[in-house]
């Protein structure tokens, strides 16, 4: 006997076991009984799927209104958020511009002070 590519010798006992264990036929009419069982199963009424009861107000027209209202709420909410973000962006830009102007003014003042200081030192 070959087992996983390795030859293995079976003793008499194993050979007798192999010879004694032969597939036996099932009782007569096995296939007929099986086919009958299948036919009965296929003919049997399938269990009904009971739909989950819905409240009366949940009618198709109400569904449409509910969906429309939800979409409107989402859209208007989105517009509000967008407007707020736009406002914040504008405020940030204005603040940045003001900061640049102040820095420029400070730079001019600093230069003038330095000029005055040089004049005073020259007179002395």
């Amino acid at each position: 006997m070959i087992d996983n590519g390795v030859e293995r010798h079976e003793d008499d006992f194993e050979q007798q076991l192999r010879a004694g264990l032969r597939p036996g036929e099932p009782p007569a009419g096995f296939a007929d009984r099986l086919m009958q069982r299948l036919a009965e199963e296929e003919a049997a009424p399938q269990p009904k799927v009971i739909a989950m009861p819905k409240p009366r107000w949940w009618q198709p027209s109400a569904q449409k209104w509910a969906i429309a209202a939800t979409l409107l709420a989402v859209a208007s909410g989105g517009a509000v958020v967008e407007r707020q973000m736009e406002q914040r962006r504008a405020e940030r830009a204005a603040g940045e511009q003001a900061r640049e102007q102040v820095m420029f003014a400070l730079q001019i003042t600093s230069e003038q002070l330095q000029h005055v200081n040089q004049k005073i030192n020259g007179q002395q």
Partner: protein
Amino acid sequence: MSVSLCRGGEFVDLSAGSFREIVMQHQAMVFSLARRVVTDPGLAEEVAQDVFMELHRRGTEVESGDHLKYWLRRVTMHRAIDQVRRRSARPELQGDEFVEEIHTDGAASASWQQLGLASRVESLVESLPETQRAVVTLRYQEDIDPDEIAALLNMPVATVKSHLQRALQLMRRKASVVLKEYRRD
């Protein structure tokens, strides 16, 4: 039921007419496997019918002739072992308990030698615990190697080999004990 194509291009037709042919072709294997494990012929027929019913329900999953054979063996063995465990009030026998049991089994030994080879082998296999019965049946009746038995029964190959070794040891011991009883009588 539909017709499905396997990876290698082989067809398995599970339409209503062909299903009967499949049953006729494999009923001996399925019934014999179930019979070896559950030991009771009536229960074995019940298991075998349930296996084919499940095949009919899940036929589209079968991909080829080889896959069909593998599927039938696997489902039959699992269903048969489950059936034995459900019906058995006591746990599976261990080796030592088994030896004690066969020593008290002398009454049946007188007729044992008069049985034919098939009946003697059947008697030996039936006396094994169900997992060993399954492994021995797959190995010596179906001629399946331990690797494939391991895949069929969802167990490591080493466990399959250990079950085989143990089963052979137990059956040899039982055969020699019964033979001694017979000679003493």
